[in-house]
Structure formats: structure tokens, C-alpha cells
């Protein structure tokens, strides 16, 4: 059985598994549909949160990004994991105690304001939609590269599967499906990494392997990598190259953005108790850390392997995977000096580089580069699909909940029956799948940029309002609305200016204070905080009932 046979088998088996799990655990009430009745075991919820959170980007793209950034790649590693500390300490337990269904629920009730709720709904929808489009695209790409299916058909297959289990299963169904998907994706990520680590360093633990000596006796792996980099005119792999300020801002924006993402926050509404919400965040991060500490090892292995394989090699002698990915358009080679050899050179060797490599290959082609067995290559496809589908399902649920619950039930038609609301939630989940699929096929060219926007938005809109809502009783609706709107407008404006209106100006000398669009969410957040505090102090304090509500969410059990 070849790679394609194995891939078909593994994808079919895992898809069947997800559907069976969804049918067994499908939702029957609105409570089950939105938050799985608030009775999910914390360890299981941690697993589901991990799958929910780790998207196609984490699985497919992150190690590749790090491989090309060296130490600066730490912004993603620290940013996307550090956010969970904020979630566990500052957000999850209190929102669990609050005990409703959604983030707009909290914003609307805490600030006793329909406007604030509406702004929150708009933010939640925007953030979730941008994310889900990228996931659908990821599904399509995995299908096309591994199974030779058209990208569009791949998107349709992915839509059908997600439609089935998110619409039917609701939160209860996707919780169990996501736990299964976590197992698939972590297995698929670790197996090739362990194989490669053993091959290159003899150490079966990748996290330690990339700090070990190479088995071919040429010294420490990272030193060898730095040496190769210097030789070829790249900056040293283990040193930082971005400006320190920008690295700080990007890391902070990713951390705070993580703690403000509605589809992650809502997972903490699904456990029974405040104590469970706390420990569930710990389990989630533990499960995530398993992949996130492996990714930089994969990056270093892949980068070393790649450089050793292609460096000054005659083009006629390249291995099979090279030609395969060249055919897919992800590797391009142009023999500028006509010597028939591959000169892969860094920015220091101006203009003489002949090879361009797509970052995504690092994970997808890694098993082939290391000549691992076919079933391991196939695993990567199944894992990538698991990562994309689990995140897509979580996002679709937030979208349908935002419309059915926050807009329909709480705003437009409060008299709607529970049955009607559940039906509406399902219908809107279905619509959301169709819209996401549409954009997955007719993709706007700037999805990567839009994802940066999603994080910036979550950081600059939700996080300050949630935090102040819990930790500062004096915060009122005027402050919250002013803060959210200002943070939002500022961040959208800055990213829009550099990413969409004037992409030619998007370089360090034009950035305001030297902060890149990826890191601007941090400034947006500070602006939000400042305005929220200032405006709140200048306007009357919130009512006694609201202050009482805040008192209550601060304490796990009522006192006196």
C-alpha cells in the first residue's frame, strides 16, 4: 500500500470515528448545544480545548515559520501558550462562576447595556469568521496534496463532515469529537518527530533531541545549524533578529488575543465548577505544550535536514520529494548562474539565491525528507485534517450561538421557545458552514493577514472589557463601549492601512513606534484600557445590582 492508499484509509477511519462519536453524544437541549450542559470532565475538556485551539496553522504552518525565523519564532510559541496562563488566572474561573453561555452574555449583563452586547456580538462574529475560513482552506489543501483531489472538492468534503457533527452534536457532540481529534493530531505530530529525532541525534525525545549532538559526529545540532546558516549567508539560527520592542509587542498581542478568543473562552463554560474551570485550563495547556514544545524541535531538524540535502547539490541529483513538491509549486528553482547546482543562499549573498521554499513544506514534507515509512507520511494528512476540523467546529458553534442566542433570544425575539432557539442555532450553524465553505473556495487573497487581524481584534476589544468587568467594580458601560470601539477602530485601522491599503509601506521604518501590524493589538489593548478607565471615572458608577454581580463572580461560593 502506497502513501495514497494509507492516507485514504487513515482519513476514512478517522472521519468515521468523528461521526460515530458525534451521533452517540449529540445535543438534545439548548444547554447541551451551547455548553454541553456544563458537565464535561476537566481533563476531557482540556483535551477538547487543545484541539479547539490548535488549528491547521499550528499543525501545518508553525514549525515551518519557526524554521525560517530561528529564535524569533519564539513569539508564536510563547504568545500562543502564555495566553492560557492569562485565561486560567484572570478569565476562566470568573466567567464560569458567572455561568451563562457566551462572551457577549457576560459583556451585556455585566455592563447592563444592549449596545455593549451588540458590539461584543459583532467582534465575536468577525473574529470567528476570519478564523473558520482559514480552516476550511486548510482542509482543502490537505486533501489536494495528499489525495490528489481538487482543493474545492476537498473543501466540500470537509464542509459536509463538519456540518454533520457540529450541527447535530452541538457543543456536547463536538467536545467528544474534539477529544478524539486531539488524540489523532498529537499522535500524527509526535510519531514523525520522534522518528526524525532518533535518526538525527539518537535521542527519542524531540524536545531534548534538538539540544543533543548529531549522530554523524559533527557536534551539537544547533551549532551545526548556526554554522550552515553562516556559511550560506543567513543570520544565525539561535540568535534574535527582530527588534526587541516588536518581539515584545507581538508576543503580548498573541497572549492577550488568545485570552480573548470567544471560541476558547466558551470551552470553560462547559465544565461543572469553578475549580474545574481552573484545572481544565491547566490540562488544556499541558496537551497543547506537548505539540508546542515539539514544534521548535521539528523546525530545527527540518531546517538542518533541508540545508544539508540541497546545499550545492547538482539539480539532476535531487531526491524524489524535491521534484514532487516542485511539481506542486511549493519549491521553485531557477539556475541563475547556469552551473546545474542548487545555490540556496541567504539575504547576505545578494541576489544569488536560486531556491525558494514554501514554509508549509517543513511539516508536510518532513517525513518524506527523512525517508520515513508511508504510513507515517499518511498520518500527517489525518492529523492536519483533525486540527483543521476541530477548530472549524468550535468556531462554527460560536457563530451559531452568537446569532441564535445573543441576537435572536436576547435581543430580537426573547419570547422564542427553547425548541425554537435550538432549531435556530442548528440552522445558523448550517448557514455558517456554507458561508465558510464559500470563502474557503473563493478565498480572498489575504487570509493570513486577516488572521493577524483576528488576534489583534480579540486583544484590543474583548480582553480589557472582560478583565475590567471582573477586577474593577467601578468600570461602567460608557467606559466599556468607549474602550471596545476605540480599541477596535484603532487596530482595524492600523492593520488595514499596512496590510490592505498600503502594503508597500509595510516595513519597520514606516511603522508607528516600530510596532508591526502583528503586534499592534497590544497598543490597541492599552488604548482600550486607558479609555475604559478614563471614561468610567468621568461617568456615574454602575448600579448596586451590578456591583453585587461582580462580588458574586469573584467568589466560588456565596458567602453570607
Amino acid at each position, binding site marked *: 500500500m502506497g502513501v495514497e492508499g494509507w492516507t485514504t484509509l487513515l482519513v476514512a477511519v478517522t472521519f468515521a470515528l468523528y461521526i460515530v462519536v458525534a451521533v452517540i453524544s449529540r445535543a*438534545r*437541549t*439548548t*444547554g447541551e448545544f*451551547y*455548553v454541553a*450542559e*456544563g458537565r464535561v470532565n476537566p481533563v476531557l475538556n482540556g483535551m477538547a480545548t487543545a484541539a479547539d485551539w490548535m488549528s491547521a496553522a499550528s499543525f501545518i504552518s508553525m514549525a515551518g515559520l*519557526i524554521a525560517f525565523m530561528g*529564535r524569533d519564532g*519564539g513569539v508564536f*510559541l*510563547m504568545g500562543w*501558550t*502564555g495566553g*492560557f*496562563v492569562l485565561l*486560567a*488566572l*484572570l478569565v476562566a*474561573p470568573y466567567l464560569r462562576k458567572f*455561568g451563562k453561555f457566551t462572551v457577549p452574555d457576560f459583556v451585556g449583563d455585566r455592563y447592563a447595556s444592549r449596545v455593549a452586547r451588540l458590539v461584543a456580538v459583532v467582534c465575536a462574529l468577525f473574529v470567528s469568521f476570519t478564523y473558520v475560513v482559514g480552516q476550511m482552506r486548510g482542509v482543502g489543501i490537505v486533501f489536494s496534496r495528499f489525495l490528489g483531489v481538487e482543493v474545492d472538492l476537498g473543501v466540500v468534503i470537509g464542509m459536509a463532515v463538519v456540518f454533520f457533527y457540529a450541527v447535530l452534536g452541538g457543543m456536547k457532540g463536538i467536545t467528544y469529537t474534539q477529544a478524539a481529534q486531539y488524540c489523532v493530531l498529537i499522535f500524527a505530530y509526535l510519531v514523525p518527530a520522534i522518528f526524525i529525532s532518533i535518526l538525527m541525534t539518537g535521542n527519542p525525545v524531540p*524536545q*531534548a533531541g*534538538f*539540544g*543533543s*549532538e548529531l549522530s554523524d559526529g559533527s557536534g*551539537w545540532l*544547533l*551549532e551545526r545549524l548556526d554554522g550552515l546558516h553562516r556559511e550560506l549567508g543567513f543570520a544565525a539560527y*539561535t*540568535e*534574535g533578529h527582530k527588534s*526587541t520592542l516588536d518581539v*515584545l509587542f507581538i*508576543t*503580548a498581542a498573541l*497572549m492577550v488575543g488568545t485570552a480573548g478568543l470567544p471560541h476558547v473562552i466558551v470551552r470553560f*463554560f462547559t465544565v461543572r*465548577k469553578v*475549580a474545574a474551570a*481552573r*484545572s481544565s485550563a*491547566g490540562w488544556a*495547556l499541558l496537551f497543547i*505544550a506537548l505539540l*508546542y*514544545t515539539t514544534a*521548535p524541535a521539528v523546525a530545527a531538524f527540518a531546517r538542518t535536514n533541508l540545508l544539508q540535502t540541497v546545499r550545492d547539490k547538482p539539480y539532476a541529483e535531487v531526491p524524489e520529494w524535491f521534484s514532487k513538491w516542485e511539481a506542486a509549486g511549493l519549491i521553485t528553482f531557477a539556475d541563475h548562474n547556469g552551473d546545474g547546482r542548487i545555490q540556496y543562499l541567504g539575504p547576505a549573498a545578494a541576489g544569488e539565491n536560486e531556491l525558494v521554499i514554501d514554509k508549509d513544506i517543513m511539516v508536510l514534507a518532513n517525513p518524506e525528507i527523512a525517508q520515513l515509512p508511508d504510513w507515517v507520511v499518511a498520518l500527517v494528512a489525518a492529523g492536519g485534517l483533525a486540527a483543521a476540523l476541530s477548530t472549524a467546529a468550535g468556531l462554527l458553534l460560536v457563530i451559531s450561538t452568537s446569532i441564535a442566542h445573543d441576537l435572536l433570544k436576547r435581543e430580537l425575539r426573547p419570547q422564542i421557545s*427553547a*425548541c425554537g432557539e*435550538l432549531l435556530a442555532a442548528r440552522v445558523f450553524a448550517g448557514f455558517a458552514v456554507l458561508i465558510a465553505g464559500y470563502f474557503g473556495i473563493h478565498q480572498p487573497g489575504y487570509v493570513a493577514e486577516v488572521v493577524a487581524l483576528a488576534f489583534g481584534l480579540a486583544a484590543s476589544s474583548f480582553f480589557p472589557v472582560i478583565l475590567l468587568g471582573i477586577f474593577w467594580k467601578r468600570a461602567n458601560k460608557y467606559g466599556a463601549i468607549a474602550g471596545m470601539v476605540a480599541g477596535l477602530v484603532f487596530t482595524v485601522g492600523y492593520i488595514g492601512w499596512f496590510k490592505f491599503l498600503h502594503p508597500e509601506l509595510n516595513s519597520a521604518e514606516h511603522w508607528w513606534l516600530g510596532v508591526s501590524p502583528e503586534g499592534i493589538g497590544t497598543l490597541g489593548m492599552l488604548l482600550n484600557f486607558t479609555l475604559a478607565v478614563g471614561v468610567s471615572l468621568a461617568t456615574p458608577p454602575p448600579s448596586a445590582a451590578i456591583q453585587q454581580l461582580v*462580588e458574586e463572580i*469573584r*467568589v*466560588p*461560593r456565596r*458567602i*453570607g
Partner: protein
Amino acid sequence: MPAADRRRAYWKANLRLLAMLLAIWAGVSFGCGILFADALDKVRIGGFRLGFWFAQQGSIYVFVALIFVYVRLATRLDRKFGVEEEDEDDGPAGKDEEAV
């Protein structure tokens, strides 16, 4: 202690705990992983330079440990002030739901 005082004392202790843990959180990530990474790089552990290790490995381990430490200390705090949840708190998640 009257209820209001107890609540205030609990909250104060909670804030102190959060401040301590977040200081460590910021120290390992923004400190060791970014601001002082170049200085720490002069130290080596095996094949790793220390600043690089914090940026790509160490900070993540510390984050995981921090949350579990928080779970323990917060539970202890809850007990000390008598605000821990009862074991059979069987209330449904949403108050405004009904079976369909």
C-alpha cells in the same frame, strides 16, 4: 468575621496570589525569553543556549507548571476562607434553559 469582610479578605489574598504568579509568568517569557535572552545566551546547557531555550522551550514548561500551582493554591485559598464549592452542586449551567 462578617461576610463582607471575609469576602474582601478572600479577594485581597486572591489578588496577591495572582500578582505573584503573573510576575513569574512575565519574568520567564518577556524577561528570560526576550529582554535578557541575549545575555542568557552566553550560558549553555547541553546543546542549547539558555536564552534560546527559554524562548522555545523553558517558558512553555513554566506556563504549564504555573497553572497547576495556581489550581492548588487557589483551592487552598478557597478552603481557608470557606468559599469552596460543594461537591454536589448539581445546578445546570444555564439558568434560563428548559428541556426540549
